[in-house]
């Protein structure tokens, strides 16, 4: 696969990861979701893009470099944060409101990591682009 296309798939994945982190941060004070469950911090899972054929045959490693893809978005296994606030409309019978236990520092670290990975993808894309442009200059006269 083309190096530029691989870098582009990485850009796509990091873009979506940032969206998931933004969702987590935006839902810090969400006491319940539409389904009635407490909100849980989400994580984006990504992995190399393997063809269905190769997966069936059990061939994990292929010689050709592969692009990356989003495998899914799964809730994190962290618990919930319970706050005693009987005046809140969302409070239960015992007067507690359930908030997601989102680790702020962890989310921030992940966000910086995501932004750096995006940057690295852009650097690789630029390098591939430069190599292509140099190859176009091959044999150029004047």
């Amino acid at each position: 696969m083309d190096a530029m296309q691989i870098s582009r798939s990485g850009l796509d994945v990091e873009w979506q990861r940032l969206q998931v982190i933004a969702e987590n941060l935006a839902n810090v004070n969400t006491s319940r979701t539409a389904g009635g469950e407490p909100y849980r911090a989400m994580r984006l899972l990504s992995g190399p893009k393997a063809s269905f054929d190769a997966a069936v045959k059990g061939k994990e490693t292929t010689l050709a470099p592969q692009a990356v893809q989003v495998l899914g978005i799964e809730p994190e296994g962290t618990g919930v944060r319970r706050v005693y606030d009987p005046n809140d409309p969302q409070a239960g019978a015992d007067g507690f409101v359930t908030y997601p236990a989102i680790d702020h520092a962890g989310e921030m670290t992940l966000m910086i990591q995501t932004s750096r990975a995006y940057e690295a993808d852009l650097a690789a894309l630029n390098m591939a682009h430069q190599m292509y442009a140099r190859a176009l200059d091959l044999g150029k006269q004047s």
Partner: protein
Amino acid sequence: MIPVAPIAPVASGPAILQLGGIPPGAAQPPTSGPAFGDILSAGMKSVETKLSTADDLVRQFALDDSVPVHKVTYALEQARLSVELAMQVRARLVEGYRDLMNMQL
């Protein structure tokens, strides 16, 4: 990118010896692989599709910003690169033609 088939040699043997007489391979042109014109027009078609995809993405991006911006810039860059490649091919063609036309006999 469209894979470019290697150009078959026109005639075997040193070309300098065949310039005076009729080259033995000239009567029947080599028919292996697609003709150069076909390759050229296929390349131009791919340039055009890339341009139109980039155009579509720009329009889509202007209408609704859920399209990631790197998709748009990537498509634009791909289109630019393929146009540049086409320009290089054209420059080489014209250069070769001019060289032949300016040959002093």
